[in-house]
């Protein structure tokens, strides 16, 4: 699709702003002044002052000579930039890509936006009308290239919309300075009698380059659309973003679901084309009263399955408060990863950990109950029972060591060992009986001790002597004695065998 750009030129940006601030200035000629090399210089003049022949860069004294009653106001530093940025952000209602071009222009990437206003003319009219209502004088233009739109906005006489492919004819009668050249080059061109673009547009590019430098060739090419030009938007657009403006404000959950489904469909199609899958997505609802409601989802593995992603969002849709209504839906994929479609084994009866169905299931559960609840364990190189396994970082992480099988380990392990009363006969012998939760267990058989030392480099503490014991009912327990027998020692129950 051919791209279209719009340029808004604020003819009296700063003075308009002062007039808005001080309405008494409306019908007086005034200029803004600044100190430059020890003299006062005019940095901006309003329309009335300009009509009297006062121009930028003129010494204030000269301007006063023309009009003794001229009002001069101190300029504000960097006011241009601030104003343009604020207006460019406001312009996001017209297009998501708006950039500023100092000192007094805003560039809009209007590709695919104008038809929503009924065409380029209506689009421009709306912009001009709204800015006029605020008190700004603007000139606007739309063309295929930034260069052409810039030239037409600044110097064009007839027709502010240049239809696709006609930028070269439109440029012909414009002065050389419409090409965004530096003053030196323009002066040199004028000296040689090349006053209009048509005078030199047909010249060989090499000759132009030799005489006037690279810039003129670049600018010509950019204006004609031979060379691409990039702009720096005030609000960077998320690379994977889909928008859905609504004619009527949406207030129902069904409406939100339909909007979400549409956006997901478009986004997933795009991801499909680019062999990508999303990991984190954001669904923003812009409400009529200016508030933004947002819900976010994350997936375990890159996914572009619209149905699955919708299910993840579905759980959270109920948290959106539409209030008076939602006028704009935006779906952004904040994190996108490469995802090539894996060939599925048709004959595989059981899924592995890398299976898509499984990761979708985990996503759904994580969306409902939180990802903290879901864990997978891998062996860790520690003898201390509580540290002998660790949570895996991902579903796909492989174990680096083997699970140890050499010593019996209980099925159930208490997270903190519980104190028990024990009767044990001789040092280092297993106990004869113990009392746990008020019940007396007579020990029939026992194995042990298995001494496990505290890992001093991690934690200080006494060693544990573990015994596997079986009571008269056949139930098996894992008991341990903390510390040496002759010192201060305690007995604990730590686990239950299967």
């Amino acid at each position, binding site marked *: 699709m051919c791209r279209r750009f719009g340029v808004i030129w604020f003819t009296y940006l700063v003075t308009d702003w002062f007039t808005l601030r001080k309405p008494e200035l409306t019908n007086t000629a005034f200029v803004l002044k600044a100190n430059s090399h020890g003299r006062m210089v005019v940095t901006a003049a309003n329309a009335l002052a300009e009509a009297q022949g006062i121009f930028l860069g003129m010494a204030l004294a000269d301007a006063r000579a023309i009009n003794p009653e001229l009002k001069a106001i101190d300029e504000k530093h960097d006011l241009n930039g601030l104003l343009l940025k604020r207006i460019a952000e406001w312009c996001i209602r017209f297009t998501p890509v708006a950039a500023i071009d100092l000192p007094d222009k805003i560039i809009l990437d209007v590709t695919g936006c104008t038809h929503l206003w009924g065409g380029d003319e209506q689009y421009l009219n709306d912009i001009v009308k709204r800015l006029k209502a605020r008190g700004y004088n603007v000139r606007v233009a739309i063309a295929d290239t930034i260069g052409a739109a810039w030239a037409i906005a600044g110097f064009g006489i007839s027709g502010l919309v240049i239809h696709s492919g006609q930028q070269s004819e439109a440029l012909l009668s414009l002065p050389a300075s419409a090409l965004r050249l530096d003053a030196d080059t323009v002066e040199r061109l004028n000296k040689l009698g090349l006053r209009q673009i048509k005078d030199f547009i047909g010249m060989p590019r090499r000759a132009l380059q030799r005489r006037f430098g690279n810039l003129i060739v670049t600018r010509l090419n950019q204006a004609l659309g031979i060379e691409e030009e990039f702009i720096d938007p005030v609000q960077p657009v998320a690379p994977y973003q889909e928008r859905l403006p609504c004619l009527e404000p949406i207030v129902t959950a069904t409406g939100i679901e339909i909007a979400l489904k549409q956006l997901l469909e478009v986004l997933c199609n795009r991801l499909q084309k680019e062999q990508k899958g999303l990991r984190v997505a954001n669904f923003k609802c812009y409400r009529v009263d200016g508030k933004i409601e947002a819900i976010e989802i994350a997936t375990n593995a890159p996914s572009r399955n619209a149905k699955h992603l919708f299910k993840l969002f579905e759980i959270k849709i109920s948290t959106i408060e539409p209030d008076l209504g939602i006028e704009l839906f935006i779906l952004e994929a904040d994190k996108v990863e490469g995802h090539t479609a894996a060939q599925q084994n048709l004959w595989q*009866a059981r899924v592995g950990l890398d299976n898509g169905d499984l990761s979708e299931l985990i996503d759904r559960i994580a969306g409902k109950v939180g990802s903290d609840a879901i864990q997978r*364990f891998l062996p860790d190189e520690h003898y201390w029972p509580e540290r002998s396994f660790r949570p895996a970082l991902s579903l796909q992480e492989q174990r680096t060591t083997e699970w140890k099988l050499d010593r019996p380990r209980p099925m159930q392990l208490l997270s903190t060992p519980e104190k028990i009363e024990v009767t044990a006969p001789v040092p280092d012998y297993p106990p004869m009986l113990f009392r746990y939760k008020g019940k007396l267990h007579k020990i029939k058989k026992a*194995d042990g001790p298995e001494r496990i030392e505290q890992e001093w480099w991690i934690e200080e503490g006494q060693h544990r002597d573990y015994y596997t014991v079986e009571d008269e*009912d056949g139930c098996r327990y894992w008991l341990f004695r903390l510390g040496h027998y002759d010192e201060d020692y305690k007995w604990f129950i730590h686990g239950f065998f299967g």
Partner: protein
Amino acid sequence: MQNSKADIIAQLQKDILPLQGFKPVKGNVGFDAGLGFIKHAFPNASFPLGAIHEFFCGGTEDVAASIGFIAGVLSEIMKTGGVSIWISSNQTIFPPALKSFGIEPDKIIFIFLKSEKEIMWTMEEALKCEGLAAVIAETPELSFTASRRLQLAVEQSRVTGFIIRRNPKNLATACVTRWKISSLPCDDETDLPGVGFPRWNVELLKVRNGTPGTWQLEWSGRFKHISTVVSVLKQKQRKAG
């Protein structure tokens, strides 16, 4: 006349089985989950996969015994590969111990949840995921409706579900089998020192279209029927004697 009546009843029972969800899984005919002749207690003489099994437990000891038994069965199911999901309300399970029952503990995804509602929701979602080996859940309560929902989910996906219920109140559920596993003291006859292999008294309290029973099993890398072990030992002793 008598004979043909019995034939008709047998034929009708056979016809009813698929209607009740006991569809024979291809390649799993005669699957015993390592339980040996216990399989004859089940319909079609094969351990019901794609069904919900519930385990009644009293205390923590019973839970540990049930987990041991389930792990033994699960290791047989997971032999062909696959992943299981373990849903629990407390974090007392000790993954390394599963290895001694022949399961790779890293092939199990644990989900620790507090509320009953979340456990049931997660279990149902997991049971609907085709290709999982099994889903195990520890939850005290299970209403008839919830169990019916789970059963319908597994009839579609052919995933096997195990529910461990501690001190259950509601006894009317739609589960296919109901078990009670309790520990048994180890063999006194051999008089060997120390505790031996884990032993269980396996009670099959209820089985749809099967015959309940009680067996004594031992786990020594695989299930072993104790009575047979003892008798074999005695035979050997007799021969030696």
